[in-house]
């Protein structure tokens, strides 16, 4: 699978996030690089189809025959409403998306997330919230997995554990990771 972004531009009112951005992701797992504020999270949301571009095209090549690309994004810019508890968020996702329940259960047990299942999203610490987003994203069926700073705010054990799960995942992945905890991966730079 290959993803090509051709002359993408994004503006919020008068603020320019990026302009005429052309990128190509041709490795199964790529690191998206860029300085703070260069628009990495915005680009991930655009690739996930959650935000419109101001101009430019996104093109998926060599996709499966049915040509619908299912994309999952784990990012703190896609937070669930704070009225729901963690368990309700997982149930809500299961209601609308296909989920690998076995993998989800393993992740919950190994990340010690059991104790937080009945906490509301607004009551979760930033680390627990990150765990919830990653459990939801890793256990959902999709062709593409987008991860925005997956290791931020996590303790060392959880980081190591999630690193193994992410590396074992066979989906096409684009990852924003400033700490480079996943080792040497092909990089795609956003800077001009």
């Amino acid at each position, binding site marked *: 699978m290959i993803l090509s972004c051709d002359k993408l531009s994004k503006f919020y009112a008068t603020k320019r996030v990026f302009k005429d951005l052309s990128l190509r992701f041709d490795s199964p797992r790529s690191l998206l690089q860029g300085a703070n504020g260069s628009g990495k999270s915005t680009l991930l949301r655009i690739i996930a189809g959650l935000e419109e571009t101001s101009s430019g095209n996104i093109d998926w090549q060599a996709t499966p025959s049915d040509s619908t690309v299912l994309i999952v*994004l784990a990012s703190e*810019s896609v937070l669930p409403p704070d009225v729901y508890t963690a368990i309700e968020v997982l149930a809500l996702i299961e*209601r*609308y998306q296909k989920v690998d*329940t076995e993998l989800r259960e393993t992740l919950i047990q190994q990340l010690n997330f059991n104790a937080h299942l009945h906490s509301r999203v607004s009551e979760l610490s930033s680390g627990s919230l990150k765990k919830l987003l990653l459990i939801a994203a890793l256990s959902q069926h999709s062709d593409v997995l987008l991860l925005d700073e997956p290791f931020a705010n996590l303790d060392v054990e959880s980081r190591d554990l999630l690193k193994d799960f992410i590396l074992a995942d066979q989906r096409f992945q684009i990852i924003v990771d400033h700490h480079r905890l996943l080792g040497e991966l092909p990089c795609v730079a956003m800077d001009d």
Partner: protein
Amino acid sequence: MFAKPSLHTIMQRKTKRFFQNNRRLYQFFIGFLIFMGPIAGATMLFAAPLLGYLAVNAVSLLEFAMVACSLALLCIVFVQFYFLYWQSSELQFLKLSMGKGRALLHHFVALNRQAAIFHILVLAAFARIEINIQSMIYVVVCYLSLFATFLWRYKLYSGSPFILKERLNAWLSASSLGEKASVGEKIKEVTKTRLNTKLFFYLMRSGAWLRALLVVAMYVLMAKLATSDIDTAFLAGIGISIMMLGSFFVALLSKLVQTNLHRDMIFWQSLGQAMPTRLTGLIKRVKWALISLFPLVFISAYLLTRI
């Protein structure tokens, strides 16, 4: 060095921005005021002394309680219109910048300036009733209702949790989940009804309940009107004015529910396009159903009493 803007200046700027953002809603409201304002005003000026008269002449506690409830509803309308353009972050900011007590006082004074019609309503009662202990109690009850409603809404808008809602959420979360079940089973046990109930509460927050209450009150008024013995010409005129006011409240309710939905739109979209499209469509359908219910309530009540 810049001087700090006063609350009055901030309110003026906010009001201007609020009008710009809600232009269509205000066009409808201004239209309503031009055509139906005199009728609504006359009704209120007639109803206020009547309310005072009923309060002073109440022979039972139940009667007085009903008058107090009507007063509380009036207070909610005035206070809610004031807080309609304040957001909790702005109230918190003002609390921090001018001190907790001063911010509260400033807002209460500003509300009283804006709620001039409320004072007219209370004082108009004295044009018709005697000044005695009971009428004094009536005035005290009026202002206590206004102050209590203001404190309640101010606390809520400035970010303090609504204890009843918190308890309800805790109860909803705690119910139906067995401790011994596995995680997968626990997630499966989260029923569709529970998720829908939470979604409903989520969409109805930030004062949507009050707007819904006003819509219900308009239905009650419509039914009461249809069962009264007023001349047909007046019946139609008052009926149309109630329907227009009711439609305005429905529009307010629908707009607020949509704003609540859009707050986390990116999450709903992440569940697939079908979910937000279905919800937006549902909100629109409910809006039109609520509006079309007005003539239906009128016709049903009219036919029931006359056939």
